[in-house]
């Protein structure tokens, strides 16, 4: 059971400002049903440009509801410029803390607020533009920019923390290496992410097979599993690696071009440049 503090439980059991503001000046939505939580924020400004009314609707767990509710109290009476400065850390502090694995709830609060502000700026009723950047985590649709932001604002050191704060890496896990590289870049050190890219000098046959096996297990299989497929290593003959695809990816008409290339790419990168991948013939 989660160790929620009294304040979190209070805001969950008796949420403030639940609902929707009529004719809002800004609407922000963050999250989705697939991700398991979603927040819709609406606000209205008074004639001095301060947030006069703000309401939320949340599909999510206790910490998602509590984070959204307390945030509405925090922004009430602020100008847009002031509200914009609120970070997920401010929300967590105000709540008196959240369990580590629930930090993403506070991030969702902040992101919905920013989306609502962006919506206000682009004009009433128009949907806010999604954050810039390149998608890193395909399972939860998290971009490099979003990951960089949570790392900087929360002084994050590990991939696990990134997952707790913004979900990235929490699905199939195949982007964890990339997240590590982002952490290393921001924290300015050369980490594991770059180490594995150097080719081992000379391998015995046994070592080579083990490395192929490990690369498939860690680099390829999670990606396939996330899409309902799987891969088997059938045999290794010199530099020829024979594999079989199963599940959804084996029926996919483009499997031969896409999945074979992905596997070959990874094996060339991690094991040896001369590796060729072949699909098992039935």
């Amino acid at each position: 059971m989660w160790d929620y503090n009294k304040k979190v439980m209070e805001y969950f059991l008796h949420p403030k400002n639940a609902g929707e503001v009529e004719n809002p000046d800004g609407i922000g939505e963050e999250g989705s049903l697939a991700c398991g939580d979603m927040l819709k924020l609406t606000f209205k400004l008074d004639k001095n440009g301060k947030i006069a009314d703000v309401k939320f609707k949340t599909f999510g767990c206790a910490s998602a509801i509590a984070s959204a509710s307390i945030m509405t109290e925090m922004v009430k009476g602020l100008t847009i410029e002031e509200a914009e400065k609120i970070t997920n850390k401010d929300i967590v502090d105000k709540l008196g803390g959240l369990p580590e694995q629930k930090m993403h709830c506070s991030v969702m609060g902040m992101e919905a607020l920013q989306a609502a502000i962006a919506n206000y700026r682009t004009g009433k009723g128009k949907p806010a533009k999604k954050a810039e950047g390149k998608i890193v985590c395909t399972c939860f649709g998290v971009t490099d920019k979003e990951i960089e932001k949570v790392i900087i604002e929360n002084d994050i050191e590990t991939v696990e923390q990134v997952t707790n704060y913004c979900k990235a890496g929490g699905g199939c896990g195949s982007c964890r290496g990339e997240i590590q590289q982002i952490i290393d870049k921001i924290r300015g050190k050369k980490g594991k992410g770059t180490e594995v890219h150097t080719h081992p000098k000379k391998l015995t046959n046994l070592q080579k097979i083990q490395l192929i096996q490990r690369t498939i297990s860690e680099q390829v299989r999670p990606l396939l599993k996330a899409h309902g497929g799987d891969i088997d290593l059938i045999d290794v003959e010199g530099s020829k690696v024979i594999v079989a695809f199963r599940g959804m990816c084996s029926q996919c008409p483009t499997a031969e071009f896409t999945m074979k290339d992905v596997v070959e790419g990874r094996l060339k990168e991690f094991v040896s440049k001369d590796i060729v991948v072949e699909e098992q013939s039935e």
Partner: protein
Amino acid sequence: MSRVIYFDNNATTNVAPEVFEAMKPFLTDLYGNPSSMHTFGGQVEKHIRYSREAIAALLGCDSSEIVFTGCGTESDNTAIKGVLAAYPEKRKIITTRVEHPAVLTTCRELQNQGYRLIELGVDKYGQIALDELKAQVDDDTALVTIMYANNETGVIFPIDKIAEIVKAKDVVFHTDAVQAVGKIPLNLNNSNIDLLSLSGHKFHAPKGVGVLYIRKGTRISPFIVGGHQEKSRRAGTENVAGIVALGKAAEIAAKSIREENTKVKKLRDKLENAILKSCPGSMLNGDKINRLPNTTNISFEFIEGEAILLLLDQFGICASSGSACTSGALEPSHVMRAMGVPFTAAHGSIRFSLSTYNTEEEVDFVIEKMPIIVNRLRELSPFVES
């Protein structure tokens, strides 16, 4: 804590008062080691024997086929790893996508060590296709491991038919029956099951004791070595009090299995029908017919499981959920996903699992509270128009 309504019996059960009485002397006066040569220790041995016989009677097998373990997970690990070690030339394992993590994680770890793993998918009722299984069992297959009944939905697989298919190809068959034992009648003598795991705390024995049934003649290497106990099939000084408790629980289960399928089933059906009727946007997950008598799994659209559980908890009602948020995972239960339950419902799935200790009054109380909780969360949901 005030009143508790315990509808989470697939997670664990209360220790039956008779079971507690039976085990007590072995935690106090009768503390001897059954392996000792002296009478003080040796007298304990016969109580282990009684227990073994009671469990064999419940399962319909010979008492020599019962091996005591530390828990259901250990039984599963022993069965899977033990059979693979006994057949080093075979490289393929077959299981399903809806197994308990005790089986699924073990199999996936072995896959990463180079074994070929086939995970059979299920349909929307949570059932596998027997043809697909038949096509997969081949000479390279070391083991087929398929659960008896699903912990989340209560769906019962046609285990006897499955065992027959596997046996026809002369492959070892293991079933994780942790949720089935004590709830539905079993008769291993009339089946082709080679290995079966069970856990004491799922049917009113304490935590920390389980059993692996090993059919006579089944090739299997021990998982835990370092002693002669359990005929060297599981080393380690016996958990005597736990084993005695498990024997007593098996004795009670043999008698109460009828009640499980009459009284408990009736309570479950009443709860399920009333909730499905009073809560719009609710639906049953799994196979309504082939199901444990005590389990119901209901999804509530557009609301989230953890929030439901915490509101139930405010009324002292204990249940569980397949929602991502309750486990610290970020994706909903693998069972819900394998059955293709839409995300709109998977995150809001709630499991109620009853036992013979539950009453109609408790069921009525939950029936009264459930629509209130659902409405309250729907009011907060951005997917529901206010």
